[in-house]
C-alpha cells in the first residue's frame, strides 16, 4: 500500500517527467515524425505560382480532383466541401504580404490543398484515430472511423478540411463508381490521390495541370524533380513557423 508521501512524490515526478520527454527528444535532435524506413517514399508537392497564374481562371486541377473523388458541389459557401481550391495571395501568405508586393504577385491565385504535414495537428486531436499519418507522409482519413466531432477542422491551421453537413450524394454531378462518396457527418480532405499512387499514377491535379505548375514527387529521393526544384529555386510554405512541417511548397 502506497502512503500519501510516496504518492505525492510519484505524482510530482510524473508531472515534471511527462513534458521532459518531448524536450529531451527535441534536444537530442530526434525527429518528431520518427525515422523513415529504407526505400520509403515521402510524398510532397511543389506549386509554381507564376506558371499557375499563366492561365487565368483555370480550374483544370480542381475539376479533375473533385470529379474523380466524388466531391459534392453544394453551391452554398456554408456547406462547401473542397479538396483543392484557390484563394488570394494575401489570404494564403499573410505574413509575406505587404503593400509593396507587386500587383501581379498579389493578384495571383494560390492553389491550396491539404499540406500533409509531417507533424499534423489534426492527427494529434483526432479522438478516434480516424485521421493518421502514413509512413509515406500522407495524412489519411479512415472515413469509417470518423465520428464528425470536427476537432481536426479546428486544429488544422490551413482550413484544409471540410465537413459534410448534408448527405452529399444528391449534390454530386456524376458519381464515379470506382471511388466511394462520403456520408453525412464525416470530415473529408485531399489524400494526395493515395489510390492513384498505389497504381503508380500521379495525383489527378498534377496530371490535369496543363501549365506544368504542379510537381509531385518523393522527398527521400535526392534526384527527384521536387528535390531539384526545392534546391534550385526559392520556395515558401504556408505558416511554416508553426512547426507543422507542411509538404506542399510554393515557388513564387
Amino acid at each position, binding site marked *: 500500500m502506497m502512503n500519501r508521501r510516496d504518492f505525492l512524490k510519484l505524482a510530482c515526478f510524473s508531472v515534471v517527467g511527462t513534458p521532459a520527454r518531448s524536450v529531451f527528444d527535441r534536444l537530442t535532435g530526434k525527429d518528431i515524425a520518427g525515422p523513415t524506413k529504407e526505400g520509403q517514399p515521402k510524398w510532397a508537392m511543389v506549386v509554381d505560382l507564376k506558371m499557375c497564374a499563366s492561365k487565368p481562371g483555370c480550374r483544370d486541377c480542381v475539376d479533375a480532383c473533385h470529379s474523380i473523388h466524388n466531391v459534392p458541389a453544394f453551391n452554398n459557401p456554408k456547406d462547401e466541401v473542397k479538396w483543392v481550391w484557390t484563394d488570394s495571395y494575401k489570404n494564403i501568405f499573410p505574413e509575406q504580404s505587404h503593400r509593396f508586393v507587386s500587383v501581379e504577385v498579389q493578384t495571383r491565385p494560390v492553389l491550396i490543398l491539404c499540406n500533409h504535414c509531417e507533424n499534423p495537428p489534426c492527427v494529434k486531436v483526432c479522438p478516434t484515430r480516424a485521421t493518421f499519418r502514413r509512413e509515406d507522409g500522407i495524412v489519411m482519413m479512415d472515413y469509417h472511423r470518423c465520428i464528425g466531432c470536427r476537432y481536426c477542422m479546428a486544429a488544422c491551421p490551413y482550413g484544409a478540411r471540410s465537413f459534410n453537413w448534408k448527405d452529399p450524394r444528391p449534390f454530386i454531378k456524376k458519381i464515379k*463508381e470506382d471511388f466511394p462518396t462520403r456520408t453525412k457527418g464525416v470530415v473529408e480532405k485531399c489524400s494526395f490521390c493515395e489510390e492513384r499512387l498505389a497504381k503508380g499514377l500521379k495525383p489527378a491535379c498534377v496530371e490535369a495541370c496543363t501549365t506544368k505548375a504542379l510537381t509531385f514527387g518523393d522527398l527521400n529521393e535526392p534526384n527527384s524533380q521536387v528535390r531539384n526544384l526545392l534546391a534550385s529555386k526559392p520556395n515558401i510554405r504556408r505558416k511554416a513557423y508553426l512547426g507543422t512541417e507542411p509538404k506542399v511548397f510554393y515557388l513564387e
Partner: protein
Amino acid sequence: MHDTAKVIAGIAVFLIVVLSPVWYNTVTGQASYVPQLKLPTDEKYCVETAPYMRTNHIELLELWKKIVVRTGKRIYKATDGKTYTMSLAGTCMKCHSNKADFCDRCHNYTNVQPNCWECHVVPKGVKTEATEHAR
C-alpha cells in the same frame, strides 16, 4: 381461493395469445423458413471457404479496410494462396452481382442494416433492392 377456475382459464388464454405466433409458424410450416439465396453462377469458390464467409464476411471486410486504409497495401493472400484485390465494390460485387437476392435477402431476414452503400458505390449492372438507400 374461490377463483381457481378463472385464474387457470386466464393463464390458458394468456399462453394461447402469447404463443400464437409460434403455433402459427409451426402449423403453416414457416418456422423452418430460411431465405433462398441466389449464388453467383460463374464462380464456385469465394475468397475463403463458404462456412467461413457465411459467419465472418464482415470481419474479413473490416480487415481489408484496415489493411487498405492504414497500410496502403491492396492485395490479399487467401488461405489457399490465391490473391485478391481488397475492394468491396471492385472484387466482391464482381461475383455477387445479384445484391438483391444475395446480400439484401439475408440481411433483411436477419434484420441487419449494413451501411456500406451509404458511401461505397454499387457498380452498374448489380441488381439491388429498390428500397435501399444506395442509388
